[in-house]
């Protein structure tokens, strides 16, 4: 197992190098001048040229890439063209917000989608199945951006039971930076009021982000469960006189989860990248927001940094899934 993990981590290095190379070429040929964007409004041409030289943008593509990789080996991701901050500081600032939001959304979606999928498989065509189908239609059919605005309108604007967005209440002082995760940092600071505030602020964006996942995972769990329930070992388990819940939860579900689990691994990366719309509506300063600014301002170093993080998270999420496989199915070993 350890060898397998090591192999995957080495694989991650090559994936990262490949992605940086592809991204570098794409960004080089994108229309737009990062030096001009960095110079700000009304900058004189000579000022723009000085910035171009300072950023190394006057060099040929291969020199720029080699310089970037050389710096990367030293852990230097460069400085943001827009904010001039080191990219590593930008990532440290924005990534924890996303890593709080995305796993919470994933947790919500699993907690809702798996039972819903199981119930709809057990009672096809009944109320649970209809609910599952409704979720699927709503979750997949409505743009997440619109759902976010509607959720905000209902829960904040009309019912006034949840905040409009943000990670903390207006005027609240954030906890001292330890991990950047407000949930963790507020607990470390022993500030339960702030922890509660952070949880409340997290709930609505996480629920909105979870909705499309509920749709996909519940439908996949349903179809997977329907397949498993017809297998011989399930019939045998029932014939042995095991209680129905035990047959379903311990025997059938465990196998049926393999397919949804694979999907969840894939979806984590997508959620991280796709959280932009939710972050935008809920003023959630996460990595999606960072990517948006980077694309708009052709902030190549930040975009490279964000892409690498996405890549690492994606590979790690799938590594976690692989490890979980061996728990769910003892026949799988590495």
């Amino acid at each position, binding site marked *: *197992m350890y060898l397998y993990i090591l192999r995957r981590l080495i694989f991650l290095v090559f994936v990262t190098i490949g992605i940086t190379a592809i991204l570098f070429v794409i960004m080089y040929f994108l229309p737009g001048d990062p030096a001009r964007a960095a110079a700000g409004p009304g900058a004189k041409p000579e000022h723009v040229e000085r910035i171009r030289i300072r950023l190394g943008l006057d060099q040929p593509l291969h020199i720029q890439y080699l310089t970037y990789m050389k710096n990367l080996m030293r852990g230097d991701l460069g400085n943001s063209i827009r904010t*001039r901050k080191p990219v590593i500081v930008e990532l440290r600032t*924005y990534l924890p917000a996303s890593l709080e939001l995305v796993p919470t959304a994933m947790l919500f979606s699993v907690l809702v989608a798996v039972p819903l999928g199981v119930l709809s498989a057990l009672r096809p065509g009944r109320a649970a199945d209809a609910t599952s189908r409704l979720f699927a239609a709503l979750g997949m059919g409505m743009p997440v951006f619109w759902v976010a605005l509607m959720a905000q309108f209902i829960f904040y604007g009309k019912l006034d039971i949840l905040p409009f967005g943000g990670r903390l209440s207006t005027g609240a002082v*954030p906890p001292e930076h*330890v991990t950047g995760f407000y949930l963790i940092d507020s607990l470390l600071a022993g500030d339960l*009021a702030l922890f509660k505030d952070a949880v409340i602020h997290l709930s609505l964006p996480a629920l909105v982000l979870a909705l499309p996942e509920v749709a996909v995972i519940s439908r996949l769990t349903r179809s997977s469960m329907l397949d498993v329930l017809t297998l011989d070992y399930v019939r045998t388990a029932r014939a042995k006189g095991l209680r129905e819940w035990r047959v379903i939860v311990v025997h059938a579900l465990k196998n049926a989860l393999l397919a949804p689990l694979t999907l969840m691994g894939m979806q984590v990366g997508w959620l991280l990248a796709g959280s932009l719309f939710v972050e935008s509506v809920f003023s959630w300063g996460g990595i999606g927001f960072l990517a948006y600014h980077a694309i708009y301002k052709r902030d190549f170093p930040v975009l490279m940094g964000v892409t690498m993080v996405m890549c690492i998270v994606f590979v790690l999420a799938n590594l976690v899934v692989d490890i979980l496989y061996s728990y769910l199915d003892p026949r799988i070993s590495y």
Partner: protein
Amino acid sequence: MYRKAFAFTNLFIVLALVLVACSATAEPPAPTEPPAPTEPPAASAMSNILTAAHSEYAFTFEPTFCNWSDVGRICVVAYDALLKYKPDTKELIPWVAKEWKISDDGLTYTFKIEERIKFHDGSELTASDVKFTFDRLKALDDGVAQNLHAVGSVDVVDDYTVAINLSSPNAAFLFGLPLVFIINEDGVKANEVDGDWGAAYLLQNDLGSGPYMLTSSIPEQQAVFEKFDDYWKGWEGDHIDGVTFLWIKESATQRLMVENGELDISMEPSADDLPVWKENPDYQVLSADSPVVFGLDYRVIKEHVDNPLVRKALTLAVDAQYVLDAGVAGYGSLARSPLASSLPYHNSDIELVPFDMDKAKALLAEAGYPDGGFTVKIGYEAGQPWKERTIEMLQQNWGKLGVKVEPMGMDYMAQEAMQQDPKSEPDAYLHHIWPSAAEPDIALRPYFHGDHKGKFGENASYWSDPEVDRLFDEGIVEADPAKREEIYREIQKRIVDATTASWILELPFSIVANKYVQGYIYNPSVHQSLDVYNMRLEGKP
């Protein structure tokens, strides 16, 4: 069992690795104050705190970048500048500098500064801080430094007198000063890391002397400022105790928050919502003409629009009133010149071009195109309602002349790349003239001087006139305001006569505020800013 434990151990290791990767190994910029256990502020505590929402996050609290409007609004509350622009009289008034004189050769500006100004750390603002501010900007060569290339050196004459020496006379120099915010020299030196002039520290802290000081911030969400008790202008009379800037991307969310009483000012209301707000007696729409002029720039190097008669004919077929009504809900005003009426030396004698389809058709025939028969490709940044409405209007009106409009929506950076390439497709661009300071030379020169042809955000029309270039060069060294006014009025006249563009609107800057917000005045020298110190909250619950 062993197998499960093994799997979970591995899972734990991977998750721990992720967590460790996100925790700081190097110290991130610290908040200004060590945070104390916090309860969200109670409503009553907010009764004299102004809460305003913007759509763009201030990525730093560093005054070097206050030429960006998202940072500039922070500078206005946390810092002071030597001079201030007075919007209602369009003149510069003393601020940190209580008086100044200009040498006969126009090369040395000597400023006497106020003797009672304190920075937020309690230290005194002296001439040395002013010199340090200019030296720092020159060294960083970034942000507002671009307006200071004429500055050769700065000398401290005594503790409260500073002399700025220019390398060549520059009549626009003073107008760049409202954006040069004085920074605390000792504060920068105490927080300098690896010769960064305190830049890392200023990402999350302020080192100013302004009426409000930064107490905490959350990226992309909020920055909280409290009043600085020792502010040199004092706190007698009615003032606001603090201001919280929120960054809310969506105007729909800003609207919800205003309606829920959580927001006092929405800085970017949707134009479609403005009539609704106006009808509601609980709120007020505060609108002013900004220095931003919106128009259709013709690239005079392209076929058809290289003919001045064609440009004049097409301009006659521009229904600017429609764009004013449908694009910005009637706020703003029709543009007659590339220099906005809110700026000094605006030529109000220039007549508005009437919307006259018959004349347009006749003129197009005179130009050799009685039935039109050509296409104009128009590049524009998508997503702004006044631009979308303009495209619709042009498609309809020019279509009646037989001229086909081909819209080319794109993002800002793609438009930049196209404008810099004379061979790129568009024949015209929907374009803003967006001055970086409230001064006519700074406002017009980049867009109309021959030296700026083909530069993004500058002379995108590729038009030039040697006489206009000469007038610019004369105007920048002319010290007599009356003569300068004459020069810049003539420049505007020549530009409009050449029809380098169809000038459409002086864009409004509109905000929505609760009715208890008083004292707001739009300041074109620091776009989208709030002069919170001179505002009041009368009867806020």
